[in-house]
């Protein structure tokens, strides 16, 4: 398949990686799949039964810390004429936005704290400190992405409709710009997230009517207007002569949050070794098969407790995808059990430090910018899932010829 790889590219380690020896795929029998399903259901039930006062205290403590950083950050920008105060203010505000979006917003909107029956933390009503309206996020993320995780053509988080991040997506010259698009998305992440539900690629291709966007755009106007007003008008005005430094400071805090959130989120599903699936091979999935897909389609990032909090525990992406509505701070405690289960069945448990996972992601962004024949295959542990229907998953070599990838490039053509 990749026999046409250009030899000069192999000498660029960043792009070609190590020698592409394709390992034998792991075959997971039907009994094993159902066993995994039962064990994970039991793990979920055990965790749900143990939820209580400590989990409540945890999230309220995080909220208190986040609000503290926010008030401190905005306060420091009032004395932003002192350079150290401006820098500290921007940092505090950046931390506040990161906590608000990740450990609080993302997790609360998943319904992780619905069991507390607190109206202020109810998933359906919660809003977060970004321009993306919460209801649109809940649709594209909680429903589409978490239900159809890594099913190419259904999970719109595979490349977000603008990037080629999986070999199953057909290549097109458009993707030569992959690194540029990814960089732009990184810097403007909150705006990218806002536009996500519009499905720009399907608008361009005509699969989706522009009329469908009107209600979404109303939501953007409602939400983004207030966010922009707060960060770029109200608080700058309140600081009086410090209008411009405050405005720049708020923009910088948003930028910090954008880059951080992008980096953590891209490490969740895009590092090498993460498996994708086709619509056919995931039809009529059992509970066990759904769990296995979540396991194989996600990757963790290892790090300290503080790092996990700052990443909204999305560093435990595997656990998050298995149990999206369990309080995220519990993932650390669940992870060893999940890892042991993977070992028991010989499944890969994709984890690594932040640097390793980020390098892996960016390598993919560059690699898949190029035509498949130019780059060597990446060695991946593929898992074949035995199913009642004669469909199998994981064979990355043959899949991309079978189905449409549903991305901007294919639709433009």
């Amino acid at each position, binding site marked *: 398949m990749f026999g046409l790889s250009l030899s000069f590219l192999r000498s660029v380690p960043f792009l070609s990686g190590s020698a592409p020896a394709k390992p034998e795929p792991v075959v997971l029998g039907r009994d094993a799949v159902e066993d995994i399903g039962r064990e994970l259901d039991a793990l979920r*039930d055990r965790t749900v039964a143990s939820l209580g006062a400590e989990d409540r205290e945890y999230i309220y403590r995080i909220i208190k810390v986040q609000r503290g950083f926010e008030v401190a950050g905005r306060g420091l920008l009032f004395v932003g004429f002192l350079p150290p105060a401006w820098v500290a203010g921007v940092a505090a505000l950046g931390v506040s936005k990161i906590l608000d979006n990740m450990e609080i917003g993302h997790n609360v909107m998943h319904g992780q704290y619905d069991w507390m*029956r607190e109206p202020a933390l109810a998933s359906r009503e919660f809003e977060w400190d970004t321009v993306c309206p919460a209801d649109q996020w809940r649709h594209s993320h909680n429903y589409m992405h978490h239900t159809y995780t890594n099913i190419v053509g259904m999970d719109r988080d595979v490349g977000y409709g603008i990037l080629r991040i999986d070999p199953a997506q057909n290549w097109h010259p458009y993707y030569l710009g992959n690194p540029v698009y990814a960089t732009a998305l990184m810097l403007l992440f909150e705006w990218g997230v806002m536009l996500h539900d519009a499905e720009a690629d399907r608008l361009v291709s005509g699969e989706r009517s522009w009329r469908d966007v009107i209600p979404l755009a109303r939501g953007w106007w409602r939400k983004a207007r207030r966010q922009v007003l707060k960060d770029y008008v109200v608080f700058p005005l309140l600081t009086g002569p410090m209008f411009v430094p405050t405005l720049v400071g708020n923009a910088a805090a948003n930028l910090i949050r954008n880059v951080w959130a992008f980096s953590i989120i891209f490490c969740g599903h895009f590092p090498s070794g993460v498996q994708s699936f086709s619509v056919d091979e995931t039809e009529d999935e059992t509970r066990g098969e759904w769990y296995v897909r979540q396991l194989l389609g996600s990757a963790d990032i290892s790090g300290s407790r503080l790092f996990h909090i700052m990443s909204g525990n999305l560093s435990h992406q595997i656990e998050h995808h298995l149990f999206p509505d369990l309080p995220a701070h519990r993932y650390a405690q669940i992870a060893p059990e999940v890892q042991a289960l993977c070992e028991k069945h010989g499944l890969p448990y994709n984890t690594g430090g932040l640097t390793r996972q980020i390098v892996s992601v960016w390598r993919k962004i560059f690699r898949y910018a190029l035509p498949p024949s130019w780059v060597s295959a990446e060695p991946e542990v593929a898992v074949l899932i035995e199913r009642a229907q004669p469909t199998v998953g994981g064979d990355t070599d043959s899949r991309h010829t079978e189905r449409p990838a549903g991305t901007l490039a294919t639709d433009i053509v």
Partner: protein
Amino acid sequence: MIAHMPHPTPSRSIARKILVKALDLMSTPHHPDRYLELADPLLTTATTRARITNVDRTSLGSVTLTLRASRPLRFRPGQCVSMSVVVDGVRHTRTFSPAEVPGSRGRGVVLTVGFRPDGRVSRHLFEHAAVGDVVELGGISGDFVLPEPVPGRLLFVSGGTGITPVLAMLSGLAAAGHTGAVTFVHYARTAEHVARRGDLDAAAALPNVEVVLAHTRGGGGHLHGRFERAHLDAVAPWFADTPTFACGPTGFVDRIRDLYEDVGAIDMLHTESFEPPVVTIDPADVSGTVHFAGSGVSVDNSGGTLLDQAEAAGLTPEHGCRMGICHTCTAIRASGCTRDVRTGEVDSEPGTRIRICVNAPVGDVAVEI
């Protein structure tokens, strides 16, 4: 009483509205309360919260709490207020019958919670309520109130913690300078079980109020044993011609109602029972009616999930994964009991948000779809 409630002047309330609006723009997307409550939980503007200022456990079988609310409560004596309490990290809401602390301008209330071994909230308050704890107060409800104008002669009969609305009415009457004759028969297990002894003694000291204590299991008091006609014949032989207000456990109130029906005086009787009848829930129960309150549609319970039943009824509730993970279909269950089809767990707390894709109705259920 209502007449004593201070009403904020319009200019003050407009200034307050402007302030909240300005705070709202600064705190967006969160409500200003989400910041204010971190400084002090009682600073919230959209909800009324209260701090427990006294906990009295001197009576057996009940605990009496004194609360200081963040703003005046507007209730008529005898009405109920809903109170939310956090137990094991979960917020639970129950209704209680408050009495106003005299001179507190509606901000101080006293309520008595009876101990029920199987009652999560009552048990928690009985065992753990402490001075300084914060609770949230919600809607005022109930029509167990005195008529206007107040009748010249009144009879009150209460059992256990059913004493609370009666005491509220008595103190309301005293505050209004009511001088008509009032007889109050209160039932408690023993003298030690009589809750709110101080308030009761204060009421008994009024020249127009006669308090009769009945003990169902102990000595002392004026009457003994469970409620029966002979009791009223002894202390209030005119009962059938007198507006009567009775409050207590369901069985107790039922006996009083039976008596008034027998003597053809049911029109004179106003009742409130504070314990909901105990319903034994059979999770396999597929009877009853499912009411989709938002669309006004009712269907016979087919046993399927609420989402399936709503769709079968031609409704299109918002939903996503259909497997309980995405929370898109979350809706408020106004009343009734539902079963989580994954875990088998049943729950019936009114006003709880549930995922309709993994919850099936058990008996009559109303959901806001």
